């Protein structure tokens, strides 16, 4: 990592100070004259099975010990923020579906909530409840994917298939409502595209039971598995203070022991009216991160089940909506607790039908920027355990 010399630099690279979990180990080994070994630079990615996507890691190795690691990102940089400036708000809903492709619903939610707040539109009760319901289903979808892929990276292939067994059913459910398997584009400024199809709630509550029941499979295959524990417990410990400095949110921060979740701390939609917990880890290691993910699925299912009982009848769009969506001049930072953490949209409007500027604050970006901290001083096989538990979606990192 450059910046190590830092000549004439007032502030040295903070990621180098004061060490990661393996502080000192690397220096002792590499610096010893008796056992002087040659460092090896290993380039992992951008296309590598473990990076689930196109992240590149440049790691410096001493044997199998990682001395330094630098994530090289941008391989999925598609210029969302620039493109948002030339698209109107309707099109942006479809666009933002695609940056965190595993939680498309949560993304569009962030945008519409921001624009609605700017325009001071009152969203009908029913639409809000449906949004809450689908956002939680989307969270389950996302977390299932990561539960599967983490297992796969540690060599357990079956959880992945089980995860997709459930995912297919949930995707089918969401497809019935929204018409999309992954990219829903179901939200509109002010409400929803259309009402839920007949029988949706019945199917949804059946599915919630099924998924809750099948969570036991993951518990048996991963959480309760001795080898899995050996690979994850105590690996990649992240202190809460560091997690905050890097802006980590969601499961990563919660695993580090901070119960920060904007569904609780700054409730939007109907989260203040449902009962759920924010799971908090103890050690902030890979196992805790995974455990938090697992618990979040349970909590999401709990919210889903409460939504079934509470969805009122009524319209899904406000009665009077302007033809053209032109928010008044001003700015807003709309933040939602998306599947992987805080997804925020800083929208600057100059009264046009396109935003003047839309900054996307994505959880994966912050999570990835923290990776070098975790990796220093761990072994190459633990790289997988660490990378897999720092949940990120590459599109969400690079935007």
């Amino acid at each position, binding site marked *: 990592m450059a910046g190590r010399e830092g000549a004439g630099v007032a502030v040295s690279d*903070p990621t180098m100070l004061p060490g990661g979990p393996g502080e000192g180990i690397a220096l002792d080994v590499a610096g010893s004259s008796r056992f002087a070994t040659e460092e090896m630079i290993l380039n992992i990615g951008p296309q590598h099975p473990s990076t689930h996507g196109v992240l590149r890691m440049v790691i410096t190795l001493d044997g199998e010990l990682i001395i330094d690691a630098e994530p090289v990102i941008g391989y999925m940089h598609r210029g969302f923020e*620039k*493109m948002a400036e030339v698209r109107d708000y309707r099109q942006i809903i479809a666009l933002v579906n695609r940056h965190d492709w595993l939680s498309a619903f949560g993304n569009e939610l962030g945008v519409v909530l921001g624009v609605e707040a700017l325009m001071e539109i009152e969203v009908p009760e029913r639409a809000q409840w449906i949004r809450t319901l689908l956002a939680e289903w989307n969270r389950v979808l996302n977390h299932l994917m990561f539960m599967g892929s983490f297992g796969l990276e540690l060599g357990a292939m079956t959880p992945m298939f089980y995860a997709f067994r459930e995912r297919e059913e949930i995707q089918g459910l969401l497809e019935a409502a929204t018409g999309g398997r992954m990219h829903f584009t179901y939200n509109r400024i002010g409400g929803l595209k259309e009402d839920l199809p007949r029988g949706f709630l019945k199917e949804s509550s059946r599915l919630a039971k099924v998924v809750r029941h099948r969570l036991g499979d993951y518990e048996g295959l991963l959480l309760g598995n001795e080898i899995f524990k050996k690979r994850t417990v105590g690996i990649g410990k992240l202190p809460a203070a560091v997690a905050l400095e890097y802006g980590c949110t969601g499961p990563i921060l919660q695993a580090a022991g901070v119960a920060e979740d904007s569904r609780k701390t700054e409730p939007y939609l109907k989260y203040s009216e449902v009962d759920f917990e924010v799971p908090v880890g103890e050690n902030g290691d890979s196992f805790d991160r995974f455990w938090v993910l697992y618990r979040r699925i349970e909590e999401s299912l709990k919210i889903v089940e409460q939504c079934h009982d509470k969805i009122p009848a009524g319209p899904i769009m406000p009665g009077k909506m302007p033809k053209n969506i032109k928010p008044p001049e001003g700015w807003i930072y709309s933040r939602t607790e998306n599947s992987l953490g805080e997804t925020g949209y800083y929208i600057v409007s100059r009264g046009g039908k396109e935003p003047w500027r839309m900054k996307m604050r994505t959880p994966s970006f912050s999570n990835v920027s923290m990776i070098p901290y975790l990796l220093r001083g761990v072994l190459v096989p633990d790289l997988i355990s660490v990378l897999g538990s720092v949940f990120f979606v590459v599109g969400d990192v690079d935007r």
Partner: protein
Amino acid sequence: MSAKALIDHVKEATGAVEREEVTPQGQVALHVTPANWHVVAEHLRRCPRCNFSMFNWLSAVDMEDDGFEVIAHLYSASSLQAVNLKTMVPREGGSVPTLTGLWRGASFHERECWEMFGIDFAGHPHLVKLLLAEPFVGNPLRKEFVLMTREAKEWPGAKEPE
């Protein structure tokens, strides 16, 4: 600490806040000069009353003739308060002191902002391209950077709802 109390406290403690802003939605922004950028940020980070331990994001907005507005969004996990620290830099040769010494996470955000807008972050230890490919020329998020594809051909689906 309410938004009002926070603003008063920071104003009093640092004396470097140019003006403050509270949006109708209750979001807080503190405007400072680039010279005071680090001072105010350090206060927000270190002062136990503020305790903005979380570096949420940093970016900029192209304000055309006014230059670029650099925004650092900070969050306090203890008081659940968020604040936008803003400063205005000129279009050319604009420079802001780096915040990497205060929050480790600032590094990536500043690198991104640097390549997207061309704003220099003085003192950043590793100011190199983050997202863009090495041969890429230009700062995409500046307004003068045009999307060539759109210049060549208007989007055929552009239609106003009637």
